[in-house]
């Protein structure tokens, strides 16, 4: 990828995160590299446990002490996040990179009002008065589509519906105008109608010229990817297996895993006997096979696949694939 310099919000090179567990060392993220550009949504797709969320949390060191992270993380074009101390990382959290979590019910503190949590997001970074912070909070709540924002300030999270809570989470993330927004499956816990509304909101935020954010959208739903993303990264067993522009990857996928994911989506109106499934078991990260991680479940596997881990190679303009074969869908 040849990113435009003033559009580059975040660049990640060789990110590797290892967990110390009772069963051994688990490499949850293995040599992941990507770049996030302003005004674009990059979707990260994969099964549960493939390392999507861990990748995002590794950027901000939000992981438990049993995790070790290596690699280079550069904010903008200048600020290195990977080797700064904890105090510096804390300053960047929320201010330059903000996170919207999956389950707004548990992600909001149940005994603090919405207003106090929003105000906290501002006051830990900027020395503003409480009144000014509240005004900004009200404005942001209105921006994300919360009706009667002044009333909501005094409400507790349990008094709000699922969609409203998620909007509050998004507002909280935007308050300091970060350049990167990480959304960790923000619509998974919502019903379909609310999901559509939140997705519209996120598209709106992407196109907002005053915010100019790069959005990293983690999901396991290919339909959502098709709806809102411009770039997509497919992950499996902690590794990137395919990435590129959404229209390219979704219409001409080259990795067997991506193809299987797309094939397993039932199409309305199509007549079939049975659904397509991906055979085999999800990968055991403690005991990965020596070669390609997808080899045990791949229909096109060869001996060369099992011998060594394939490298991520570029096959088209921005299209990279981690597979030694050229599999046409």
């Amino acid at each position, binding site marked *: 990828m040849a990113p435009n310099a003033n559009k580059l919000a975040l660049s990640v090179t060789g990110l590797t995160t290892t967990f110390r567990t009772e069963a051994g060392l688990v490499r949850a993220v293995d040599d992941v590299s990507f770049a996030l550009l302003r005004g674009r949504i990059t979707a990260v797709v994969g099964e549960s446990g493939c390392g999507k969320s861990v990748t995002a949390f590794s950027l901000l060191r939000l992981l438990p002490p049993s995790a070790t992270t290596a690699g280079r993380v550069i904010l903008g074009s200048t600020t290195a996040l990977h080797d700064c101390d904890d105090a510096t990382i804390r300053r960047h959290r929320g201010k330059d990179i903000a996170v919207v979590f999956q389950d707004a019910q548990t992600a909001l503190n149940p005994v603090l009002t919405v207003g106090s949590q929003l105000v*906290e997001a501002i006051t830990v970074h900027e020395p503003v008065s409480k009144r000014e912070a509240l005004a900004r909070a009200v404005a942001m709540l209105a921006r994300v589509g919360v009706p009667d924002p002044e009333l909501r300030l005094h409400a507790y999270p349990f008094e709000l*519906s699922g969609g409203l809570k998620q909007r509050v989470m998004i507002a909280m993330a935007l308050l300091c105008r970060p350049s990167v927004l990480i959304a960790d499956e923000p619509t998974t816990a919502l019903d379909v109608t609310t999901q559509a509304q939140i997705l519209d909101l996120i598209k709106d935020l992407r196109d907002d010229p005053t915010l100019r954010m790069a959005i990293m959208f983690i999901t396991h739903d290919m339909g959502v990817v098709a709806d809102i993303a411009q770039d997509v990264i497919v992950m499996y067993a902690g590794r990137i297996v395919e990435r590129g522009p959404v229209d390219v990857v979704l219409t001409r996928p080259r990795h067997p895993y991506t193809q299987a994911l797309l094939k397993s989506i039932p199409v309305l109106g199509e007549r079939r006997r049975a659904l397509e499934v991906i055979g085999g078991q999800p990968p055991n990260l403690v005991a990965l096979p020596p070669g390609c991680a997808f080899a045990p479940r791949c229909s096109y596997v060869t001996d060369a696949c099992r011998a060594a881990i394939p490298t991520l190679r570029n096959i088209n303009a921005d299209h990279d694939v981690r597979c030694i074969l050229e599999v046409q869908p």
Partner: protein
Amino acid sequence: MHILSWLRRKCIMLAITLVVVTLATFAIMKAAPGNPYATDRKIEPAVERAIRKALCLDEPWHVQYWCYVKNMATGEIPSMRYEDKTPMSVIFPSLYDQRTGKQRILYWEDRTRYDGTKVRVLKILPDGGLFASFVVGCGALLFAIGVGVTAGVFAAKRRNSLIDHCLMGWAMIGITVPNFVIGPLLAYVVGTRLGWLPSSGWGELRHLVLPIITLGFAYAAYFGRFSRGGMLEVLNEDYVRTARAKGVPEWRITVWHELKLGLQPVVTFLGPAASGIVVGSIVVETVFQIPGIGRHLVESALARDYTLLMAMTVLLFTLLSVANMIVDLSYQLIDPRTRGKEATS
């Protein structure tokens, strides 16, 4: 209003509890052999008649019960053991000397210590009875909460470290070793052998130290375990991660986000801790010779002075019930979820 209806419910429960307690104590007292005022001394017939009348002993039992409740409510408790003063003055010693008009608290007094030294100290502590026990009990509760919660939070933050194991081992000792072992041990080691603090007695602030530590030690252990457990549950919660992701500094996360919910088990345990301290103070006052209500309770029990015994028991029950109500009320104010609001959209 929600709080008012809750208050009304609690008052009804309080009334029911008191009725149950008075009935139970009354029934036990009737089952006791002999007269409720019997001692080995001979009592003059006139006095005996007066006492029988005061206790309504010649009436059917439900009238006796009503008599019993009335006596307790008004404070006219017949007791053979105290002749020059009424039992109520034993429980509630007066703060003013009736005869001389001088106050009996908050003045400078000259004291001679047990080792002969003369000092001039400010008399802050009440003479005895309920107030003295209250001072010791509150001190023990504050000690238990302060030491216990601090240790528990500390241990939770550094889980499985050496400090964690040490603190929890210490907590185990506190829960298992009874206060009538710790008390005499402390009194002997610190008081008799080392001589730093008096091993018994009452009157100066130094007399408070050992009883408070003895009484509070077990509950510090309990609070330590509970706060550690509560904090451990909270430490992994999502909203703590959200706060961290917002860039909130660690100290503020601990105080604002983790403590508020992590200390929930501690607040729940305040009630049983208070009642346990009341019971424990009985032993502690015996060990350290403090003239509080606990020691009077034991003496009444051993001397079979039932009327006074029952009165003190019912009094303690009432006080603790009211205290529990206050704690519950503040709990409702702290945690908005218990107020019963519905989710709106």
